[in-house]
């Protein structure tokens, strides 16, 4: 059984490093992208089992990437969780329209929380 592939799309390098390290320790294959453009390309290429998507990013923000992803044959059913510090009801509604599994506020969860929730999602989805 292969490892689950997780794609982290996050523009703050220190943030993506610490999450990546933590997830890898737990046996996940993790790739990162710094913006929506790279994220979109990597997603279509690697077909990750889960995408952790930030909202505010340069070049292409998270919600735009999400709408583009949904236009792709594989992408339209991809599992995406918004992981961001931007708490705005309007954005949440837009994300919900494009279909995300969940909306996590970084400031409200610990690394442990994130790990736990991801494992829960995988257990739920399979």
């Amino acid at each position, binding site marked *: 059984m292969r490892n689950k592939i997780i794609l982290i799309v996050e523009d703050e390098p220190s943030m993506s490093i610490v999450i990546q390290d933590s997830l890898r320790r737990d046996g996940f294959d993790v790739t990162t992208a710094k913006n929506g453009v790279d994220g979109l390309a990597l997603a279509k290429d690697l077909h990750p089992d889960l995408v952790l998507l930030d909202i505010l990013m340069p070049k292409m923000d998270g919600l735009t990437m999400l709408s583009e992803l949904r236009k792709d044959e594989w992408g339209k059913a991809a599992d995406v969780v918004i992981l961001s510090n931007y708490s705005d009801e309007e954005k949440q509604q837009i994300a919900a329209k494009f279909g995300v599994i969940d909306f996590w506020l970084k*400031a409200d969860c*610990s690394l442990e929380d994130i790990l736990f929730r991801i494992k829960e999602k995988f257990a739920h989805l399979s």
Partner: protein
Amino acid sequence: MAAKLSHGFCADIVAHMPDGVAYCEMIFNEKNEPIDWVYLEVNENFEKLTGLQNPEGKRVTELIPGIHESNPELFELYGRVTRTKLFEKIQTHVPQLSRWFSVLVYSPGENHFVAIFEDITKEKQIEQEQKDLLENLRVEREEAIYEKSRALALFENIPDGVIAVDLNGCITHVNPAAEEMLHWGAHEAIGRMFYDVVTLSDLEGAIPVKRRPLQVAMTTGKPFVTTLEDAPLITRKDHTVFSVMLSAAPIITDRVVGGVVVIHDVTREKELDRSKSEFISIASHQLRTPLSTIAWYAEALLALHLGPLLGPQKKYVEEIAHMDARMIELVNALLSVSRIDLGTFKIAAEPVQLSEVVDAVLLELAKPIADRGLFIEKDYTCCKKPIMIDKNAIHMIFQNLLANAVVYNKKGGSITVRIVIDGEAHITIANTGCGIPRNVQANIFGKFFRADNAREVEPGGTGIGLYIVRSLLRYLGGSVWFESEENKGATFHVIMPVTPLKKDL
């Protein structure tokens, strides 16, 4: 003296004519001024018309005291006629008799005169009434002209668009502001149906007829105003769109005869709202980003992911994590306060079972409750029905009050929560803690205020919790107060209406 009036042919006429007839002798003084007259003979109607009885042989100054002062013109007239022998007519008012008379007078000879008169009091009254009526009409007309000019000036110059329609919804007037807003000339728009010229839609598309403001106003007979939150959109001929506030009112005489719509362009207000909201969201995002990062790095270190930590190292990293958590809490509180202060919180009422919210918050506080060994007592017996309220707002209120009840409590102390719903919702949260000293009670709801005894128990508090509770309750139409004494705990009371106020924060 030979009786003239009672003679023969004339006698009948004089007796039956409706006028009064008086045959008199004029009296002059040494200076030849007319000062009196004597009634020699009068006809029957004289008494009826004047109310003077048995005048014959009497002087007028006896019969009507003060007549010389009140009607000098009569003395002048009779004196003149007696001398000139000309026929003259006069209309005069005799105040003592409260009557108007029309008098024809001539002199048959010597110092005598004959006065033939009718009572024209009624006619005079009517004349005066007509004059008054005309004067009133003139004044009313002037006022009407003024009002019309004022209304016109208002209509032409008001910066909001104003459109008037007849009872079929056909446009009758369009003011210059409306022409500019809609890009329709008045001459093009007049005669057309309102909704052909004003294309209204909202987020869900075209607005159905029965919800259109003008329609509602004209059928209900009451004004209808749209809200800023649900501001409808108008699409111009060139497909550009702008948000508006519409105020539609019926024109009512005895029934609805038309309508008026005032259109206020709220593009700027909407933009301002949006940019306030965005500013707060971005500001908190920028503050939270480094804070979350620190939290996670500290967590990774403490979880020994990067190898073992010596005792002192562990303590220092724990302190980093602890202070960082305080900062995050502060940012969250500031975010709430900013939203409340700048008015960008949206209230959405839904049915909420208050006891469930309290239980959820108590669960979130499970660890600190256990750490302090606190005993929780709940009384939900009178909390049967859910109430209509904004879930997030009430959650925040309970979160703040219960967190306080936990943090400022004694070890092994207790918290009592009671909910009573009876016309309104009354929640009581009591604890056995350090309490609020009397000398600071007036300030306890102030922004960033922390009492000294509270600082000793919990140095890291934000001082904004109660400010948030009070502000939120204000917007929900409720209130909060407390009873407390230093070291004797505190009991907080919250009252909320059971049906919500529909408002934005």
